[in-house]
Structure formats: structure tokens, C-alpha cells
């Protein structure tokens, strides 16, 4: 239908494509630049600055990181743990409550709906949350402090409920007549039928967990529990600290010029963000489908 809608002809099409090509370049440029910097020799950086083509090619930065990969690997492990456990639990919790809310014949449907969605309107804010987590749930320095807070979002319940609400009620009724319990109906019939919605939502949730840094920033001090994103924050802060306290470094007898400082940081960013950058575009089409599953009104 699109092709037939075209009326303007080739000239305007060329202009549109030019627009998108320029836009794409603008969007990709930062990525290209960071890759280039990570592959540039440290001394060349000091001489010529950051540029799109490495002025002197070097793999030292990657070498340096991969020589002692313990911190990086541990951060990967933590992030993978958080993402997998978090996504599974979150999907389970979300789909269970979404299913109940989607059942028109459930007598407590209205109060339960209000109970869930009121939380979208008002929240206590950061401080009560912080105190709850640290003083009452004692979750400081625990990976659960990153997993638990993002586990249930009313918005995802809404999306899931929209999907489950479309499953014909007769299907549920007939299974019930056959003597199945509600729990069985949910786990053996509804969940398998909801696979598309679960996959889409799971993708969103997994992505959120993978990129999570806020709760890590608040609750994680222990070096062993640092996830990837927090690792990057810490590297930035440490290097700022070293740069601003040159006397301290001299007192330690460290030679800063030996460290492939700039290129190493950028190489680390690539090692942290790179894998996801390659994986996620393949899931893009599911994201697009997810948008229509949970489409807003209209």
C-alpha cells in the first residue's frame, strides 16, 4: 500500500533517503568514534586527540584489560545472574497477577485493579524506598537489591492483562468443567498460550535488568557484587580521582603514563556494552510487535 501511496516521485524520495542517511550517520557516529579511540595508541591520543580513524593503531588497551579479566568477568557474571533470575521471577509474578485481573468473573477484580494501578500515580519517593531496602529488608550489598525493586511494574501488568484478556473465556470455562483447578488452568493452559506476550515482555524486562545501574549505585559497595554498568561508573570515578590527585599517585610510586588510560576506558565500554549492542537489534522486531501487543488506545 505504501508504494502506491507514493505520489511525489523520485526527487522527493531521494531527499527522504538523504535525510535518513544523514540521520543514521549522526546516530552511529558516537559508536564509531568510541571504537576508533579504543583501538588507538595512547600516545597518539595525547598528540592528536580522539578521531574517527585511529591515528596509530594499537590493541594495547584490550590486551591490558584481558590480561587480568577477573573484575570484568565477575561483573559479567553478576549482570547475567541478575538478568536471568530477575526476568524469570518478574515474568512469573507479572503474568500471575495479570491473569487474575484479566478474568472478568473474578469478584475482587475492581479492588485489585485499583490496588495495582494506584501505585502508578503516587509513590513515596527515593528516601523511604532507600530506608526500606537498607534498614528493614537489609538488602544492602546483595544482588537482590538490584533484582527485587524492578520485579513488578504496573505498566507491564497492563500490557500482559491486555493480551490475556483476549483469550476466549469459553476455553477457560470448558477446562473448568473438566475439573481443572485455577492454578492448573493458569500454568498449563494460559501460560503456554501467552508465549508471544511473555517473550516480548521478557525482552523488555531483561533489557532493563542488563542496563540497571541505579539500584547498584545505591546499594552495592562490595567489589565482588558489582554489575557491568556500575563497573563503568566506578572506572570513571577512579580515574577522575587519580587524575585530580596526582600527588597521591606519586606517593604510591605509580607511573600513570604507563597506563593506557583513555583508550583502556573506551575499550572497557566496548567490552561491556558491545555484546548487547550486537544481540539486541536482532530482537528489534519483537520490540515492535510488543508495542502493538500493549498498544495504547487507538
Amino acid at each position, binding site marked *: 500500500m505504501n*508504494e502506491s501511496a507514493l505520489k511525489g516521485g523520485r526527487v522527493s524520495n531521494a531527499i527522504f533517503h538523504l*535525510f535518513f542517511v544523514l540521520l543514521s550517520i549522526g546516530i552511529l557516529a558516537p559508536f564509531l*568514534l568510541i571504537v576508533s579511540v579504543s583501538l588507538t595508541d595512547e600516545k597518539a*591520543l595525547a598528540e592528536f586527540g580522539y578521531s574517527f580513524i585511529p591515528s596509530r593503531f594499537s590493541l594495547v588497551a584490550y590486551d591490558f584489560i584481558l590480561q587480568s579479566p577477573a573484575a570484568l568477568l565477575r561483573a559479567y557474571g553478576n549482570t547475567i545472574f541478575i538478568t536471568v533470575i530477575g526476568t524469570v521471577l518478574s515474568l512469573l509474578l507479572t503474568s500471575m497477577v495479570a491473569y*487474575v485481573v484479566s478474568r472478568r468473573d473474578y469478584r475482587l477484580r475492581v479492588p485489585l485493579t485499583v490496588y*495495582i494501578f494506584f501505585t502508578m*500515580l503516587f509513590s513515596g519517593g527515593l528516601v*523511604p524506598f532507600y530506608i526500606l531496602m537498607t534498614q528493614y529488608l537489609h538488602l544492602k550489598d546483595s544482588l537482590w537489591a538490584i533484582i527485587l525493586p524492578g520485579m*513488578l511494574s504496573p505498566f507491564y501488568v497492563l500490557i500482559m492483562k491486555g493480551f490475556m484478556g483476549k483469550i476466549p473465556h469459553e476455553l477457560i470455562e470448558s477446562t473448568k468443567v473438566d475439573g481443572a483447578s485455577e492454578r492448573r488452568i493458569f500454568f498449563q493452559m494460559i501460560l503456554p498460550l501467552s508465549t508471544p506476550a511473555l517473550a516480548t515482555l521478557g525482552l523488555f524486562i531483561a533489557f532493563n535488568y542488563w542496563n540497571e545501574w541505579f539500584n547498584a549505585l545505591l546499594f552495592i559497595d562490595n567489589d565482588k557484587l558489582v554489575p557491568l554498568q556500575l563497573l563503568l561508573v566506578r572506572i570513571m570515578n577512579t580515574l577522575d580521582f587519580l587524575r585530580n590527585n596526582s600527588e597521591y599517585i606519586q606517593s604510591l610510586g605509580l607511573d600513570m603514563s604507563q597506563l593506557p588510560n583513555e583508550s583502556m576506558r573506551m575499550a572497557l565500554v566496548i567490552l561491556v556494552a558491545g555484546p548487547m549492542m550486537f544481540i539486541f537489534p536482532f530482537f528489534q522486531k519483537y520490540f515492535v510487535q510488543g508495542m502493538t501487543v500493549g498498544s495504547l488506545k487507538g
Partner: protein
Amino acid sequence: MRQSEAVLSGAAAEGRPKSRRKPRLRSSDKELSLLALPAAIYIFVFSYLTMFGVIIAFKNYRYDKGIWGSEWVGLANFEFFFLTEKAYIVTRNTVLYNVWFFIVTTLCALLVAVLLNEISRKWSKYYQTVMFLPTFVSWVVIMYLAEIFLHHDYGFINQVLQAFGAERVRWYLEPANWPAILTVAHLWKSIGFSALVYYAGIVAIDPSYYEAARIDGATRFQMVRKITIPMLAPLITILLIMNIGSMFRGDFGLHFFVSGNSPLLYNSVDIIDTFVYRALSVSGDTSMAAAVGLYQSLVGFVLVVAANYVVRKINEENSLW
């Protein structure tokens, strides 16, 4: 209080004569309740308990004494915040950035979505994939990407400036440039997603409108103006309401990381969220941070209810509830 009212009015709205019978729970209701129980407990702990926690804002909170043990101080925490010019600065920044971001993103995303619809599906997919990439990147990574452009000695922009004989700029020390920098960063990250939302809206429009318009001899531009944009109006309205509701909430990551959390930039990049975070974690002024957080939540609540009320008055279809 509010909640029970809402429950009552909600039940009344259902208004089925059936519900006049005593609502005794059947066994299936009990089983379903059991399924919903874990989530209900979760929501109680993580949402409702923190709502009760706002009383910290009226106390002089001390960790050793706990919430109940700490002494009441009335509105002193609020006074402390509102008497400084900080209150004005962070509120202004939060609201202005939100309004500005909404305008810029909506206009750009609409333009991109309309143009995407004008080119072939195959190509639009490629462009969308590229535009979607920044959506998958966290603000922490973007902090590094920004630095690569803005670094004083090595940064790409300063390289270019120098090549043209201009002075290098100390970006992280000059507040005046930051509204523009944050706008670019925000747009870069959000354009793919926003454009997709509008593009999905355009694709859903009944093609017969366009066919009819074409038979009447409408140009592409006329079709966009008279069909596409009006048909997207409900979507834009809903996004606007949601945006008004979160007018007092900013994107912590954008303002905190992209600016490198540089104290010299606070006046132009600080928002309520970053201010509360610093009050809590750096200066350790827990009660004042709680007061500011409560102020943020209350105003946000009033805004979203008010916005929804106004929209419902104008056109019920477009309101959130």
C-alpha cells in the same frame, strides 16, 4: 483514604445488579486470589510501605532511632528546602527540561515517522534498526560517549574547533551550553523509540482515507496535514498526559551521568531527582531529601489527576481513565 474511595466509586461504576447480592467469594475466586497474592504482597511492600514512609519528611530521621523513634519536626524540612534558592532552580530545571524535551522529541519523532511512511518498507526497516540502537545503550555508556565528544584536550568537538582556528571550550565547566547538550543526548537516545510509536500509529490508519484523498487529488503534504496528523492526535494527547503526570520527574541518568555530575554545572543540569539523590547519599540529609521527594510525588499526583480531568472534559475518548 483515597484508595478506599476509589474502590467504592469503581465498584459503583460497575453497577451490575448482580453485585447487590452479598459478594461471597466462590472457590474459584479464592484460587485466583491465591495466584494474585505474591504480587499483592510485593506491591504492598515496595509501593504502599514506601508511601507510609513519607512521614520521614516530617521527622528528623536518625538511623539509630528508626522511623518511629525519630522526633517530629513539623514542616521544618520543607522550610529548609524552600528557603534556599535551590528549590526554585531544581523545580524550574525539571519542568523546563521536561516541557522542552517533549516538544522537541514529539516534533522530531513525528517528522521521522511521517517520512518513514513515505519510503519503502524495506528501507524503513534498516533506518529503524539504526535509530533503535541508542535505545539499548545505558546512560552510563552514554556518559563515555559524551566525553569522547566533549573532553577538553582530546574531545572531537574541540579538535574540530581547533582545526577551524576557534578556541577550545571547557565543556564540563560551562553551564550555558548544557541545555543544548542534554537536548542532543536525550534526542539521540529517544528518537528511535518515539518515532516507532508514531510510525505504528500511522500504519494503523485506515488506508481508505488516503485512497479517497488521492482520488480528490490531494498532494502528499496535504495528506499528512489533513489525515495523518489529525489521526495521530489522540496518541499525542495520551503521551502528553503521561508526560504532564511525570513533569516533576526527570531522567536521573541523563542529568547525572551525561554531565559527569560536575558541581559547576548544577545550576543548569540539576533536577529534583539528582538533587534528592545527592541530599541522600552525599550530604546525608535524609529528612530533607524525603521532604523534597514528597513534594515531587504530591505535585506529580495532582498534575496527572488534573490533566486527566481536563482531557476528559474535552474528549472522554482520549483520557487515561
